[in-house]
């Protein structure tokens, strides 16, 4: 009865877009497998900071974002959907950071 102005969902995404995203996802998969075979380190102050997981998560995050935006049409959806989709990931981050904050700062 309100907010009928948003006819966003009727947006028909062209097949070519799907194919481009698909190609990017496949490329990302190959990239993440390839990268996993190399030691990716970062040297700082004499410490070696391993970055393999960070890289893997960055690639996975990018792939997920592509799926969410294009396959799941969030790019073409109302702001409400944007907010809720973001909230899901934000709450996941809250669960992660506050829990790990405990583990990072204790002896166990």
């Amino acid at each position: 009865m309100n907010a009928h102005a948003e006819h966003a969902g009727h947006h028909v995404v062209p097949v070519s877009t799907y194919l481009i995203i698909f190609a990017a996802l496949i490329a990302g998969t190959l990239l993440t497998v390839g990268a996993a075979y190399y030691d990716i380190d970062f040297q700082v102050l004499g410490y070696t900071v391993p970055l393999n997981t960070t890289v893997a998560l960055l690639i996975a995050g990018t792939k997920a974002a592509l799926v969410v935006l294009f396959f799941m049409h969030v790019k073409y959806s109302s702001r409400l959907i944007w907010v809720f989709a973001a909230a899901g990931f934000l709450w996941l981050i809250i669960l992660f950071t506050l829990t790990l904050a405990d583990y990072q700062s204790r002896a166990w």
Partner: protein
Amino acid sequence: MTDARQPALPKLHYLNADYGIKSWLLTTDHKRIAILYLLGVTFFFFVGGLFAVLVRVELLTPAGDFVQAETYNKLFTMHGVFMVFFFLIPTIPAVLGNFLVPLMIGARDLAFPRINLLSWYIYMAGGAFTILAMAAGGVDTGWTFYTPYSSTYANTHVMLTGIGVFITGFSSILTGLNFIVTIHKMRAPGLTWFRLPLFIWAHYATSLIMILGTPVVAITVLLLALERAFRIGIFDPALGGDPVLFQHLFWFYSHPAVYIMILPGMGVVNELITCFSRKKIFGYHFIAFSSVAIALLGFLVWAHHMFVAGLSVYASLVFSVLSFLVAIPSAIKVFNWTATLYKGSVSYQAPMLYAMGFIGLFTLGGLTGLFLATLAVDIHVHDTYFVVAHFHYIMVGGMVMAYMGGLHYWWPKMTGRMYPDTWARFAALVIFIGFNLTFFPQFVLGYLGMPRRYHAYPEEFQVLNVMSTAGASILGVGYLIPFFYLMYSLRYGAIAGPNPWGAKGLEWETPSPPPTENFPVTPMVTEEPYEYGAPGAAPRGHVRPQEAPGD
């Protein structure tokens, strides 16, 4: 009730629109589903209450002489499980919320009526598993299911109970989902966000918590069940797991769950205070946003349940300071309610007595929460009766008082009939007195150092325990009285008419009981919320002669 010209019941309404068991069990009408929930939660409330009575009887004497230690442990566990998961969490949203959310926003039903019915069945299925666990011999882990006791050592029915809790979680999720979609997409024309009743804001905030928190406890309980079934050790230190991780995941939901219980209660109180003081609510925006703030901040404080559990010092500091922050929106609400009474026209009908009781008891419950957020004091009072008293002030003094107030307030809307107000006021008074006598001594007991979940206790704690048990018996009577007069009113109560309180809000603009489609025509909202006392809006109380509603 002194009125000679009784209004008549509408000819056709949701209660008599269809007959037979099937018409109830297969209904998709949110109002009928609310009634189904009412039956369910009332049943579980009395089951949980029965366990509470037995617990209090045992604690009358220091020695563990009424029941065996193992039985006692099962009693407090089943009391907690039934009350938390099957009464406190679902009650206000699933009964009052289910009934009122569509009515208050001028919709014909919730967005997904069949999912709404499904969530009732899920709730009952979860309840059935838990009842089964109880019948099979019960469970003795405490409602918190702490590992490794629950995963490895307990040899009671942890699995069955866990399955019951897991299943019921989905009922909560589906209810929350339904509310959010309904509130976003189905408001009547003209009903902007800031014209919504604060009851709706509170339910919106509650639904957010249900959506975001419940799945975490679901997976946690599921992992616990897997751990018991297959002897794997995700939370068992003997197998490399960390029991404190269980506590993190458990409280990530179970602390916000406290706000699932209390936020809808706060929502109810907004409606009662304004109606019975005939005042526009003081600080509408602040109350609305404080509901959302509580829902959001509520997710950042869970580890204050774990200050002595082996949490790191730094994590403790962070969680302590965040816990204090969540107190502020609650304080804002209390101050605004009090200010609403100022220069009002206050009447003392039963719902208002409950609302005033709520303000007082919630204030005390909330303030004692500050003790638990204060690190050094929490070290001493954690896991003592101080904590027990604190959360009962919030849960029973807050949520149950609000629920009773709301149930009385909307009873005429739900049934079309009035209850005897004198009895209702008397019951409210008995409950208030019984409650305080039961739980106030427990604050003292806790500070003296009496640990919770003790079957037997040192003798010097007896006097306070006797006071508490005496209070509980008064409280028990207080809860039975409404049961009887509400039943009585179903048949003999005076006909209420559409708006017996002269209240504002869309739900009062349709007949009592409402027709299945809620409104004959979709209402158009042109008014700000709680426009009591506005020119041309003379209150139409049922104490005053009024026209019979057309139907």
